[in-house]
C-alpha cells in the first residue's frame, strides 16, 4: 500500500514538470505567433528595426540577439582568467588542503549573491570607475554588463572545472612526474587534455547562466534599442528588453517581446544541451 502510494506520487511529480515545461513552450509559441506571422520568422530574427511609434511599428530581434551574444561571450572571456586559476588552485595545487576549501567556499558564495546586489555594485561602484578609465563614455554599456556577468558566472565555471580536474586519474599524473615532468608540464600535458572537454562543458553551463541574466544586465547595459556598434556603446539583451518593455506592452509589441522570449528559451536550451552532451562524453573518458 505504502509502496504503491509512493510510486503514484513519484509518477505524478515526474509528470508535472514536463507538463509545465510543455505548457510554457505552448503558450510562448501561441503568443509569439502574432509577431512571426506579421514580420515572418527570419525577417523578425534578422531585422534591427525597433520602432514603437504608433502607426509605424516595426520590431526585430537582431539588436537584442547581438547584445545577448556579445555580453555572454565577452563575459566568458573575462571569466576565464578568474575561474581557471581558482579551479586549478582548488582541484590540483592545494587539493584537499584547508586553504582550498576556504577558497572554494568563498567562490561558491558568489553564486548565492542575488543579482540585484551585483547590479547595484556595478551601478554604484564599477560604473564610475569605467567612466574614469574612459572604458565607456557613459559608464554603462555592453562592456560593463559583461564584466559584472563574468564575476557572476565565475563560481559556476570554477567549481565544475575543479571537479573535472580532480577526476584526472592520479596514475597518469604520477607517471608523468616519474618521467621527470614539472608541475606546469603535468598541468599542460596531462590535466588539460584529460579534463579538457569537462572544463569546456563547465563553461558552456556558465554561458547558460549568463544568457538569461536579467536584473544585473538591465541595470548596467544602458538599455538602448539600436545595434551595438562597439563594446563601449550601450545596448540591450533579449532578457533586458523584455524586463524593460513588458509591463506596458500590448498588441504587436507584446507579441514581439514574447517572440524574443521564445528565441531566448531556444538558444538557452540548445546551449545547455550541448553542455550536457559534452559532460556525458567527458565522464565516459
Amino acid at each position: 500500500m505504502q509502496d504503491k502510494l509512493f510510486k503514484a506520487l513519484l509518477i505524478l511529480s515526474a509528470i508535472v514538470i514536463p507538463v509545465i515545461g510543455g505548457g510554457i513552450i505552448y503558450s510562448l509559441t501561441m503568443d509569439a505567433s502574432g509577431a512571426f506571422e506579421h514580420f515572418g520568422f527570419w525577417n523578425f530574427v534578422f531585422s534591427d528595426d525597433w520602432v514603437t511609434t504608433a502607426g509605424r511599428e516595426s520590431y526585430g530581434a537582431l539588436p537584442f540577439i547581438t547584445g545577448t551574444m556579445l555580453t555572454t561571450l565577452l563575459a566568458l572571456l573575462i571569466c576565464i582568467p578568474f575561474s581557471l586559476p581558482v579551479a586549478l588552485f582548488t582541484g590540483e595545487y592545494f587539493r584537499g588542503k584547508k586553504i582550498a576549501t576556504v577558497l572554494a567556499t568563498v567562490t561558491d558564495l558568489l553564486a548565492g549573491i542575488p543579482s540585484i546586489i551585483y547590479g547595484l555594485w556595478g551601478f554604484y561602484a564599477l560604473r564610475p570607475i569605467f567612466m574614469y578609465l574612459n572604458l565607456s563614455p557613459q559608464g554603462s554599456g555592453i562592456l560593463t554588463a559583461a564584466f559584472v556577468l563574468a564575476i557572476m558566472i565565475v563560481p559556476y565555471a570554477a567549481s565544475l572545472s575543479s571537479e573535472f580536474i580532480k577526476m584526472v586519474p592520479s596514475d597518469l599524473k604520477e607517471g608523468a612526474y616519474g618521467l621527470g615532468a614539472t608541475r606546469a608540464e603535468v598541468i599542460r600535458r596531462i590535466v588539460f587534455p584529460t579534463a579538457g572537454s569537462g572544463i569546456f562543458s563547465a563553461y558552456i553551463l556558465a554561458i547558460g547562466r549568463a544568457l538569461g541574466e536579467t536584473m544585473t544586465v538591465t541595470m548596467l547595459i544602458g538599455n538602448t534599442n539600436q545595434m551595438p556598434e562597439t563594446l563601449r556603446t550601450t545596448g540591450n539583451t533579449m532578457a533586458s528588453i523584455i524586463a524593460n518593455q513588458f509591463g506596458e506592452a500590448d498588441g504587436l509589441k507584446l507579441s514581439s517581446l514574447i517572440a524574443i522570449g521564445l528565441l531566448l528559451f531556444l538558444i538557452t536550451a540548445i546551449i545547455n544541451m550541448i553542455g550536457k552532451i559534452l559532460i556525458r562524453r567527458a565522464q565516459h573518458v
Partner: protein
Amino acid sequence: MKKFFLPFAAVAMALTITACGGQKTANANGRESVEMSGAGATFPLPFYTMSFDSYSEKSGDVVSYGGIGSGGGVRNLKDGIVDFAGSDAFLSDEEMKEMQPVVHIPTCMGAVVMAYNLPEVKSLNLSGDVIADIYLGKITKWNDARIVALNPDAQLPEKDIIPAFRSDGSGTTFVFTDYLTKVSEEWKNTLGSGKTVDFKVGLAAKGNPGVAGIIAQTPYSIGYMGSEYAFAQKIPSANVKNANGEMVTPSTESISAAAAGDMPQDTRCSITNSNAAGAYPISCFTWLIIYKEQNYADRSLDQAKATLDLMNYMLSDSIQQTTSTVHYAPLPKKAIDLSLENLKTVTYNGENILK
C-alpha cells in the same frame, strides 16, 4: 503507516480550515466583506497602498493592488481577472472599442518634473520647446543661447547636456512626450507620444530610481521623472514655463492648478500644457478603470458594490486631503463631481447599483 499519512492529514486539515475561514459577516457597509484585486500603474502606488489599507481597515473588505504597469493592468481588466485597473493614461477611443464599456475614475494628480545635476546652478528655468530640443539633440550645451535667455542670472557651464530617459514603458514617459507633442511641432512629427518613444539621444535607465541614479551620478545630466518620486527624494527640479508664459515651480498647488480648465464628462482628458493660471504644464491625472457592467467573470453583486464603495472612498474628502502627504496633488472639485455622477451609471445585470 500512520506516520506516512500524517502529512496528508495535515494538508487536508489546512484545506478545511481555509475553506471555512471566510466567516461571512455583515460589515460596515451592510453587506458581506469581499476581497478585491486591482493591478496597473506604479506611479500612484504609494498613494494606493496607503488609501487601500485605510479602506480595508474601515470597511472590512480586503483590497490588493499589483503595480505591474498601466498596460498590464488594462490587460488584466480585459481578461476579467481584476476588479479594477490603474492607469496613468486614459484609454484611447480605439482601446475603448475593443472592450466592454468602462468608467474612468481619476484618483489623484501628479506631474513629471525635470530633474538635473548642475553643480554650478541653484535654480534652473526651462520651457517646453527647449526641453523638446534637448531631447531631439538640437540643444547640446548648457550655455546654449536659448537656455541662457531663460536663466539670465545663472552661470551656465559650457558642458554637454546629458539627457536621461526611461528605458521601460511608462506612464511617466507618456505624460512627458504628450506635453512635448503639444509644444513642439518637430517632436510631434518625429517621435510623437507614447509609453515608450524611440529617443535618439541620451542615457536610458529603468524606473524612476534608475533615472534618479543616473542624474545623481552624472554631472551635467537632465532627466524626467514622476513628481511623487522627486518630491519624496527631494531631488532638485527645474521650473517650467507654462502656456501663459509664467515660470512655474512644480508643487502640489501648481499641479492641482493645471486641472482648472474644461473637463469632458468621462474625465478622459490630458491636462499637459494647461493654460490655467499658475499651472505646472507637465501635470497629469491617474485613473482607476472599472467596467460599467459589473457582472462579469462570475462576480457577485457584493463584489460590485464593494468596488463602487472603494471608488467612492477614493473620491472622498478625507482621502483626497491625504494625497499631499505622499507627494501627490488632490483632485479638483469638478473632477470629483463628474466621477460621482459617472459612478451612478455603473450597473449589475443592467440595473443601476447606486440609487
